[in-house]
């Protein structure tokens, strides 16, 4: 990974942070639609990134979001789980013609059906874990399901549009 890629990812992290804390935190549609889009950061890291690094990135990113949401460790716990699952999930959804060297799993380089198949379950998982750990009681299970479904659809739409707008195909 060279310096310019590193800078790109740093910029993307900050962009998602500002989007989440400044804008999405202030938007209130219903209590059932609370999208969290910052999982996009982990999902777009190159496929062959060191998995330990991904795990630690997930942990520290979640911790910073927890500081700003005053939520103890909810974001840390759920985002670390996502970082852990990413490694296995990438193996599971690997297309038949395998990943290239330094493949970046973004919309511009893959087709959109693969992109949705890759990101949507992870986004759903992230929201489900987040809301489950937050409520921590089984009697809210139906509420948690509704919140998960609506929020992940909203988050997925936002992620898709960010990819459409900002990611250019690699020039060859």
């Amino acid at each position, binding site marked *: 990974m060279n310096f310019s890629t590193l800078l790109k990812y740093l910029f993307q992290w900050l962009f998602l942070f500002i989007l989440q804390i400044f804008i999405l935190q202030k938007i209130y549609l219903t209590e059932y639609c609370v999208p969290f889009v910052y999982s996009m950061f982990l999902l777009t890291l190159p496929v062959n990134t060191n998995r*330990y690094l991904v*795990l630690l990135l997930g942990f520290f990113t979640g911790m910073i979001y927890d500081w700003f949401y*005053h939520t*103890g*460790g909810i974001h840390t716990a759920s985002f670390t789980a996502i970082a852990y699952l990413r490694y296995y999930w990438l193996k599971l959804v690997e297309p038949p013609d395998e990943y290239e060297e330094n493949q970046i799993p973004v919309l511009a380089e893959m087709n959109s059906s693969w992109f949705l198949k890759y990101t949507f379950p992870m986004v759903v998982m992230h929201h489900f874990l987040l809301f489950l750990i937050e409520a921590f009681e089984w009697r809210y299970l139906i509420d948690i399901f509704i919140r998960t479904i609506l929020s992940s659809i909203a988050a997925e739409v936002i992620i898709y549009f960010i990819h459409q707008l900002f990611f250019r195909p690699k020039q060859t």
Partner: protein
Amino acid sequence: MKSLFTFIYRRTYGLLFVFLEVISFYFIYQGTNYSSSVLLNYSNEIAGKWYEQKSKIYQYFYLKSENEKLAQLNASLLNKSYFAYKIISNKEYIHKDTSIHQEYLFINAHVINSTFNNQKNYITLDIGKNKGLQRDMAVITNNGIVGVVKDVSEHYSTVITLLHKDFLVNCMIKDGSCGPLSWDGRSREYMQMNDVPLHAKIKTGDTVYTSHFSHIFPMLIPVGKVESFERKQKNPFYTVQVKIFTDFSSIHHVYVIKHIYKAELDSLQKISYQ
């Protein structure tokens, strides 16, 4: 022993994951148990600085409505002031009342961050220990209650709002019947008041106030209005839906209430209630 090391070596990824999860659940446990560790206070300062800058920008968008609210409060205070009264006696009047003394002190504060989308919602204030804030002080606005101070750092403090699953305040309906008010985590406009006795004369639209049982909030601060009430499954109590007055998406100025004799009250109760 060797097989143990090979086991650990093979499973490093999983073990690191479990280790990080244990840490994060420790954070959750710590956060719910009112612990004010060094790390928590430190993060409070950092997040507080950031949110202060952010709210400086956001404040401009609310200037107009904020001014209106303050003007209304000014008017209501002017009505209570010396100028609003007509002097009907020629005698000099010195207001030196020995029959009352001040019990509560009101400290002005700005909200620099607020959340209302979670199950546990907080706001951050721009004052802290430097203005004498302590844990468990009440926070109100012009027209309703907001919450209770949780953690205090040097220049900032965080407040547990009404929209927090662990928040509980004793309230009183217009006819005098009391009960604890809490939030079920669903709509941010409604809270639930449990254990209201069946003989209470409740009407929809009655105002709900803080009661005299609360040692944190002063008595008779308006909280909300009765929206509906029902008796669940032959419980000997009503459950009352209360529509709260405070709109958490637009709070900017709040007042922190300091109970001047709280230490005395607490120590007395500690002795007698053992």
